[in-house]
């Protein structure tokens, strides 16, 4: 009767059933490994991951292989196409484009990922609190979200930049200040779709029977959210997140284009594109490389997002 506890039963004698599990050892792996196994089967996503890996290691390790200064001015060699001395050519000041691409790539990629993290963190937080709390809190948070959505992006951005650029510069230095400001501004302007998405997911998921079952078996509210609702809401959020990385890189380009991003002597992919625009007819390579890099990054990240979404959903046969 009540004396036979199934848990201690198997804990006492684990030897015999353990044998049966050996042949299918591969199945008893952690969820993270399982997800990785499934991700690997997604050809496009793996291609995207490899491309991104090459880009990231290129901008991180490249400068050690190609130790050319980014601001070595050489008017004798200005606006040259690719050559052995300058594999990606030079700009109007004769500066080496390969070195500038690598340096600028660090900034652009860092901005992209950091801004995505900000947008996702704020969005998931706001969305899940709104989705779980009904009543005034939900209404207030959604009102805030709509307010942010209604704000005109560019004028607001200009305003924020003008207001805070100098004070941030004092605290974090020129580049650090610009980085934080850009990330916060981009992240702060892109969390709303995430929040709405997460809230909508929560509204439908919290009524699901398995959440109810978890509650009935003693799961606290926090556990219901973290363990049961959030993982099921993650798929679309990941996709939005990857799109956000791409959008942030492009947004940074826009800012640089307007001269509101990093100081003009600091190259980013966006600012290089801006500088190149006046020489499109005589030095197309100058615009081609940063443009191509942004394009490749964005595409790679979107494929990775697709793959991640599929890999996280066990119902999808991969």
């Amino acid at each position, binding site marked *: 009767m009540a004396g*036979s*506890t199934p848990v201690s039963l198997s804990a006492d004698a684990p030897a015999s059933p353990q044998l049966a599990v050996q042949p299918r050892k591969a199945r*008893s792996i952690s*969820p993270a490994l399982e997800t990785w196994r499934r991700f690997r089967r997604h050809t496009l996503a793996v291609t995207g991951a490899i491309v991104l890996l090459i880009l990231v290691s290129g901008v991180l390790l490249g400068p050690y292989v190609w130790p050319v200064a980014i601001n070595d001015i050489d008017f004798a060699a200005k606006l040259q196409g690719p050559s052995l001395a300058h594999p990606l050519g030079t700009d109007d000041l004769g500066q080496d484009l390969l070195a500038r691409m690598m340096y600028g790539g660090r900034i652009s990629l860092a901005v992209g990922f950091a801004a995505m993290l900000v947008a996702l963190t704020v969005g998931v937080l706001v969305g899940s609190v709104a989705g779980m709390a009904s009543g005034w809190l939900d209404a207030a948070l959604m009102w805030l979200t709509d307010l942010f959505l209604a704000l005109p992006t560019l004028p607001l951005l200009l305003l924020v930049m003008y207001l805070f650029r100098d004070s941030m510069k004092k605290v974090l230095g020129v580049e650090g200040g610009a980085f934080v400001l850009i990330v916060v501004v981009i992240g702060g302007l892109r969390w709303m779709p995430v929040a709405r998405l997460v809230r909508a997911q929560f509204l439908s998921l919290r009524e699901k029977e*398995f959440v109810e079952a978890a509650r*009935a078996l003693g799961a*606290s509210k926090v556990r219901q959210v973290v363990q049961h609702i959030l993982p*099921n809401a993650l798929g679309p959020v990941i996709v939005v997140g990857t799109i956000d990385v791409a959008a942030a890189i492009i947004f940074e380009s826009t800012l640089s284009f307007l001269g509101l991003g990093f100081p003009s002597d600091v190259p980013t992919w966006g600012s290089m594109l801006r500088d190149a625009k006046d020489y499109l007819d005589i030095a197309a390579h100058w615009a081609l490389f940063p443009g191509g890099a942004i394009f490749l990054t964005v595409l790679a990240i979107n494929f990775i997002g697709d793959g991640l979404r599929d890999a996280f*959903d*066990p119902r999808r046969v991969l």
Partner: protein
Amino acid sequence: MADTLLDIRGLKTWFKVEDGMVRAVDGVDLHIDRGETVGVVGESGCGKTVTARSVLKLIDMPPGRFEAGQILWQGRDLIPLDQGEMNKIRAREIAIIFQEPMTSLNPVYTVGDQIAEVIALHQKLSPKQAMAGAAEMLRLVNIPNPQKRVHDYPHQFSGGMRQRVMIAMALSCQPKLLIADEPTTALDVTIQAQILELMHEMKDKFGMAIMLITHAMGVVAETCQRVTVMYAGKVVEEAPVEALFADPRHPYTQGLIRSIPRIDRAVSRQARLESIQGTVPSLLNPPAGCRFAARCKYAMDICTQGIPPLKEVAPGHRVACVL
């Protein structure tokens, strides 16, 4: 054996809606002793699920509200407890399984993870021990190859198997009471029988009590010791199962029993299956007096004047009818 586990006294669970109060459960008395199986029957919408969920305090408040009554669990009233205190009772003392096995498991975790989660939530065990416990539970509910199946996802199981997994999950902490809310309604007939048999196997093994909510009088006759018949948010009859089938006193119960399909009767007398005429009254503004009056062929004037209380007509057999 008069060792009472659960004693619901005069429970009223109401829901506030735009047009007023839905009196979903309106004065229910129900008790369950240690180790017994109690059937709760009644037609759709009579408040069976709300009663069951009230016991575990799974009613959303608002709109729900406990208007009156007590839910005594081994003598202790559950109504004043907060959710944190209830979480110590859920699964460990009282567990519930729902009607929908297809959607009651989280699609993104393996069934082993989900059972192990419940075990780890209530007992101090390492993840490995909890997982071993999960496999053991799967074995107990007769899932073939449990050591492998713990690593499978819910979509890899059939409906009947998922309900077995739900039972494994609910029983993983050996509760004293299992509430089964129409556990077999969504399954086909042969699987239904297997699940019911499994529940009783488990009951014998763990010595727990079962509150079996169902529409099927046939199931009640086969599996329960006592039956509580509900109608429109109230208990209308309560009796040991033999007494109820041999001598149903309430006109509603009589109607329910007559509506059971029976091969012998149909063949010998060519009688058509009887159904109870009319529909359940609105719980929003329930009629004064006996709620069955509009459909009762014995209804008299006094029936609509006051609500007939439950009266004992034989030992353990109580009826709420003026007759």
